[in-house]
């Protein structure tokens, strides 16, 4: 922007307007190119490692493959028809939804509660915060093995504890009634650390003086939490619900390690079903078709969350 330093004849208005319009155009153009420049690294990487493979999967979903995974013959939409008319698929879908219901609301609620309790300025607060974040340091692989021992049919310390309380032992991973609940319990534990940290970060961004003035107004801690904390951390809450739902849709390793989809297909969530089709039976066509259906489902659900959720979210 050039500054016009002249004290004699003031500029006619028209040219001033056109000049500021021109400079506005320049800055608008600058802003756009900067935006695309900032987005480029991510977009290029997504292109190579996500979108291109996705297109390739769409291509594969229209074909039948031989046991080596090579494309054998064109199938059109037959794979999709097969999936959408199979009972196994609907069973998987139902189990996936149950799994989401069992893991997401309790997981978010517990994290929220713990964050609310441990944000108070007390002695040992930092220690408690560390304890509640602990599961975040545990990977799905190692976590699954730890819980394998906890759920172990003969060594299970959980059953021993239940026994002390007079409850008969539970076949955690081998009883179809319990297997999904066991996987969910372990998944809640695994994700708790991360959920807790996000909630805590959100709560700490609430300005202190809001709490001060609430106190002066004589608002009790519960009311303050409902009236001030919750609305102000709604972005973090919204974020954590979206991410939790997506990640539970994609839970795989714990099911692969602990139950292999069993007993009696009671933990056969969609992603595990895809894995079986593609990497055990080498039916890449069917696997890809299922994966695409899953993709559409998650996308639809997320769009719905944004439509409903973002309206209620309070950004400063």
């Amino acid at each position: 922007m050039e500054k016009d330093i002249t004290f004699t004849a003031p500029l006619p208005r028209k040219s001033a307007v056109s000049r500021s319009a021109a400079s506005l155009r320049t800055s608008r153009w600058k802003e756009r190119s900067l935006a695309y420049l900032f987005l480029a690294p991510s977009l290029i990487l997504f292109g190579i490692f996500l979108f291109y493979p996705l297109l390739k999967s769409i291509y594969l979903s229209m074909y039948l493959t031989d046991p080596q995974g090579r494309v054998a013959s064109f199938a059109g939409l037959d794979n999709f028809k097969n999936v959408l008319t199979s009972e196994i698929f609907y069973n998987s879908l139902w189990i996936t939804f149950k799994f989401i219901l069992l893991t997401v609301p309790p997981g978010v609620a517990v994290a929220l509660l713990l964050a609310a309790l441990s944000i108070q300025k007390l002695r040992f607060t930092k220690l408690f915060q560390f304890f509640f974040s602990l599961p975040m340091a545990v990977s799905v692989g190692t976590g699954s093995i730890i819980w394998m021992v906890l759920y172990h049919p003969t060594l299970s310390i959980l059953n021993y504890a239940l026994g002390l309380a007079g409850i008969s032992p539970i076949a955690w991973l081998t009883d179809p009634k319990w297997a999904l609940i066991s996987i969910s319990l372990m998944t809640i534990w695994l994700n708790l650390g991360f959920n807790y940290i996000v909630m805590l970060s959100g709560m700490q961004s609430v300005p202190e003086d809001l709490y001060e003035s609430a106190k002066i107004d004589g608002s009790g801690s519960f009311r303050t939490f409902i009236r001030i904390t919750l609305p102000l951390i709604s972005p973090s809450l919204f974020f954590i619900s979206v991410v939790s739902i997506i990640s539970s849709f994609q839970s795989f390793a714990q099911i692969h390690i602990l139950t292999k989809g069993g007993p009696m297909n009671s933990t056969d969530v969609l992603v595990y079903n895809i894995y079986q089709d593609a990497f055990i039976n080498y039916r890449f066509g069917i696997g890809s078709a299922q994966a695409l259906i899953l993709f559409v489902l998650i996308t639809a659900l997320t769009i719905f969350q944004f439509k409903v959720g973002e309206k209620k979210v309070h950004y400063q």
Partner: protein
Amino acid sequence: MSIRAMNQTILYVVLSVSALLISFPLLFTLSSAFMSSAESASYPPRLLPSGLHWDNFHQVVQTVPVIRFITNSFIVAGAIMLGQLITGSMAAYAFAFLRFPGKALIFSLFLSTMMIPWEVTMIPNYLTVRSWHWLDSYQGLIAPFLASAFGTFLLRQYFLQLPKELFEAAKVDGCGHLRIFAQLVLPLSMPSLATLAVYSFLTNWSNYLWPLLITNKESMRTVQIGIGMLQFEEVTAWNVVMAGIIMMLLPSLILLVIGLKPLVRGITAGALKG
């Protein structure tokens, strides 16, 4: 005892019980790692070992090259973490503060990448990496994860929470977007950047399927694959497995201890009000 003191006591009890419950699986692992094999297989299960059987760790080191695995995991997870911070904060800035055509479309494109199941992209990605001769290489382990829609989304949420007045003031002072990004937004978003850094490191530290697919040489293996080499059979020496798990957990635990500080410190109200 006043009401206040009683409330505090109840709070402490609730917090302590929760802390114990949440850390129990890990405490149990730690304790089992020091048991003899007889102790770890006894019933009723023991809570504490009779002594510290350091020999279990010795057995792990003899069975698998743990140090090498840990080094590999460090290199891979560290590089991915840096990459995601750079690409994520740039993209998040564009979404939060810049106006450009196609913004909504590109944003939903970003979000949709979070929903593409990893299983869908695995085979084509394997073929891509193989055709570049990147099997058994660090770049093959790192490249596919350098951009993160999740990280972008997280940072965008935080950027949007920054007070608008700050930017108006900076713009009046004649700051361009590059300066606002580098000198205002990034320093103010340290807590969320730290969240992403820790998150990114820990999740990529635990990648399982991808390293399994593209590494064949033992010298290129990462920790997560290494753990599988401890041989899980019907008659497993759980104490040795648990010792292995503790060794492989240690780096991420240390990171959590270091990384929790910036998170817990958080954005102070003063910095926000500028």
